[in-house]
């Protein structure tokens, strides 16, 4: 009785993850640097300075003054990813020279973690739902257009989704075995999760819900409990998580409690951003209750959502018997031989993964300051259920094919192709306008613009205007960068994407070329440009599927 996936499957999962990283890497240079990436580049450089000091003068680096000098930068976010960005830049760009662009070198850790997330979905899905289901689940996760966009960035949103998934997986494995390895690994990795992004603090609630549901299930079914009331992994999380968190974030080494409270307060009292939704710009509570749900429907391929729904319903109906090989031939399921209760525990965890990912959006007080990226942690679990759903569909279709005597028809491969083709094509098409992409359910990008859904944010579409800027800006011109952070602009210059003589500026008056990234509330910036430049005629427009996303003005 083994849950272990064959070596070939593990290799396939890793290959899928590696392929995803490769795709992200080769497409990175056409994606402009987002606003927040600029701040993280700056932070990574600062932290790198601390490591240099640690190497040359450890005593000074470890002193309070030494720590504060470097780690005060961007101390509202934990350190792990920014440190990885710094190391990646130092190793792959500076030392080895394997990566041509400094910005892409900073982005690499996020890409790798995204690829590992894809590989883990494949692995976990294969273990629970079968090889083909694992493959399709991983593919559908990789081909969520917004996931593909965020997976490129030197930010935290995809990394936290991946690390969250890893800790959940380790925890689930710890329930299967008496080995302590998974228990301690869960605790340690939870510390890494805490050090990745602040929404990691919701993770224990996710596990507690799972433990309560398992115990309640035992109680209701009048089953003798075979596992401890409180899983050891949960204790490991409590014991190891916070120390690892503090250990890896030097900012917390001094005045720990006060600084930790400051970190918590920053996120609990986060300023409200503006977000357009159905033609209205929201900037303060009450936020619309339908925001997360409609945006999920509008940005995830309907096929993926439909399969996840089928998978969820199939699971509730107890469909977890036969598994499929990719060829479509009936294969004795690995899990058919496994205890149903164990697989149910995994699937229940997936369900809670979705619920907890979306949980903040049950409150009308949760600020919608970044769109879909704030519930990305739910998407890997959704993809796992989509894999389940694929299995359910494929089994039915194979049965139909057999009824009709189509024994040689590669039903599973064909079904996988048909069900994932839309997601693959949409994802490829979404680049490099990931945040402007919308599904056919709302009429694509033009339909979303008509409905009044957010068209872009973070100023990354400057990348799509780089060609025009380079060709048309006067030598030494100052360019008003609008929503692009100056650090992001400077990185585009350093990478050679923007001419090095073009200075970014936040002053419209001092500029001779001005960028505008459209969001309704930003309109006043555009109107200021009209007055300052004495023209309301854009010189160039970056469009996605005919929808204007960002444009440029040139002074007359």
């Amino acid at each position, binding site marked *: 009785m083994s849950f272990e996936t064959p070596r070939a499957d593990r290799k396939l999962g890793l290959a899928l993850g590696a392929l995803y990283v490769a795709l992200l890497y080769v497409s990175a240079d056409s994606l402009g640097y987002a606003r927040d990436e600029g701040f993280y580049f700056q932070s990574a450089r600062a932290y790198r300075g601390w490591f240099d000091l640690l190497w040359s003068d450890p005593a000074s680096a470890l002193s309070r003054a030494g720590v504060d000098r470097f780690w005060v930068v961007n101390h509202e976010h934990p350190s792990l990813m920014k440190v990885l960005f710094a190391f990646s830049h130092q190793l792959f760009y500076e030392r080895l020279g394997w990566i041509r662009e400094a910005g892409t070198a900073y982005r690499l850790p996020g890409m790798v973690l995204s690829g590992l997330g894809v590989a883990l979905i494949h692995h976990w899905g294969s273990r629970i739902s079968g090889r083909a289901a694992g493959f399709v689940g991983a593919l559908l996760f990789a081909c969520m257009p917004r996931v593909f966009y965020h997976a490129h960035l030197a930010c935290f949103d995809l990394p936290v989704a991946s690390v969250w998934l890893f800790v959940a997986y380790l925890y689930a494995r710890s329930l299967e075995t008496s080995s302590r390895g998974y228990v301690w690994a869960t605790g340690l990795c939870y510390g890494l999760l805490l050090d990745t992004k602040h929404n990691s603090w919701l993770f224990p609630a996710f596990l507690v819900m799972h433990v309560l549901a398992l115990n309640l299930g035992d109680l209701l079914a009048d089953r003798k409990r075979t596992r401890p009331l409180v899983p050891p992994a949960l204790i490991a999380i409590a014991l190891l998580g916070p120390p690892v968190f503090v250990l890896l974030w030097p900012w917390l080494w001094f005045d720990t409690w006060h600084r930790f409270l400051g970190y918590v307060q920053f996120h609990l009292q986060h300023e409200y951003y503006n977000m357009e939704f159905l033609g209205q710009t929201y900037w303060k509570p009450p936020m619309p209750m339908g925001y997360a749900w409609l945006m999920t429907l509008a940005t995830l391929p309907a096929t993926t959502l439909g399969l996840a729904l089928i998978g969820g319903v199939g699971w509730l109906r107890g469909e977890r018997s036969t598994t499929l090989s990719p060829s479509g031939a009936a294969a004795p399921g690995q899990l058919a031989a496994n205890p149903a209760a164990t697989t149910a525990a995994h699937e229940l965890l997936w369900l809670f993964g979705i619920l907890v990912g979306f949980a903040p959006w049950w409150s009308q007080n949760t600020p919608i300051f970044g769109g879909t990226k704030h519930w990305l942690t739910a998407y890997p679990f959704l993809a796992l259920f989509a894999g389940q759903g694929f299995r359910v*569909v494929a089994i039915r279709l194979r049965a139909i094919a057999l009824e009709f005597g189509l024994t040689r028809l590669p039903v599973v491969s064909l079904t996988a192709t048909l069900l994932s083709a839309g997601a693959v094509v949409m994802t490829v098409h979404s680049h490099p306008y990931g945040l402007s992409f919308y599904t056919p359910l709302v009429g694509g990008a033009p339909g979303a613009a008509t409905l009044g859904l957010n068209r872009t944010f973070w100023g990354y579409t400057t990348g799509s205007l780089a060609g025009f800027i380079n060709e048309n800006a006067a030598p030494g011109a100052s360019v008003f960068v609008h929503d692009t952070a100056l650090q992001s602009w400077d990185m585009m210059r350093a990478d050679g994407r923007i001419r090095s003589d073009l200075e970014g500026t936040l002053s419209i008056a001092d500029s001779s070329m001005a960028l505008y990234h459209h969001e309704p509330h930003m309109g006043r910036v555009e109107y200021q440009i009209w007055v300052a430049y004495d023209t309301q005629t854009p010189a160039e427009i970056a469009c996605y599927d005919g929808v204007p996303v960002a444009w440029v003005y040139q002074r007359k």
Partner: protein
Amino acid sequence: MAGSRFVTSPWRLLWLLAPIAGLVELGAHLYFAGRAPRETDFAELKSEVERLRNTGELVVIAPEWAEPLARKAFGEELMPLADVARSDATGYERALEIGMLDQRSPELSGWTELAEERDGPFLLRTLKNPHYEAVRYAFNEHVRPSELFVVEWNGEAEHNCDFTPRARVTAGGLGGHVAYPAERFRCSGGEAYFAGVTLIDDQRYRPRRCLYAHPPVNAVLHLRFPNVPAGKKLRGYGGQSFLLTRDGNAAPIEFAIFIDGHEIGRRDFLDQQGFSPFEFAIGRGAPERVEVTFQVQSKSPVGREFCFAAEMR
């Protein structure tokens, strides 16, 4: 095997819909991705718009989000700033609506259709305003020293605000002040205290071209147009940049209008109202030409970038 086709419920065949749904989604994506007109389509439309549009006719794009493409393709002759940043469409006798994706402009709802023409992905409709009121005098267009005097009155003496055509244009960015134009009547108190035509964002974040008139400290601001053709009413809009004031709760901007020294109307503008309308009747028996004075003041004047657009009709 033929006999086995009917062994199980035909409902099972519904599962075939799953892969078909995948293909339908792919097809729908390809359809929607290619449905909206591109920049080149707008560029090719320009000559047709030039042919159809009469002088003074408003060009409106539906849906609104495509307007930047039209501005780029058609240029400022077909879409001048006064039209693009209009207060409303009531002062236009006719409009040319350029519709696409089966959209119509809500602003032109109820207008009478005079002609309709399809041009590729566009539907061009010439529309007539059934409630047209001719604009006799648009105050925004007369902000120059020969036609406007701007003074601060502190209860004892008047202080003239001097006109300059070449002030340094400044703009505050997203959270900063509106653009301060080159042509302005400079008053006392600092850079923000002036009268001049600029743009603000209304409660839909749309552009509104208006006459900026910052209320002075411990004084009232008078904008005096001495030679205005009289009409039946004086109407317009007033307010401040909505983004900056939407959470505000400061003392109102007190706004009053005088014709030849007699007050014809007064209203208070509150922060969160955005760009909101006013309308006052002109009494019968007014001479052919009148002096119109707009008075602006506030008990909390600092940082109040009041702006209004008025027309004599």
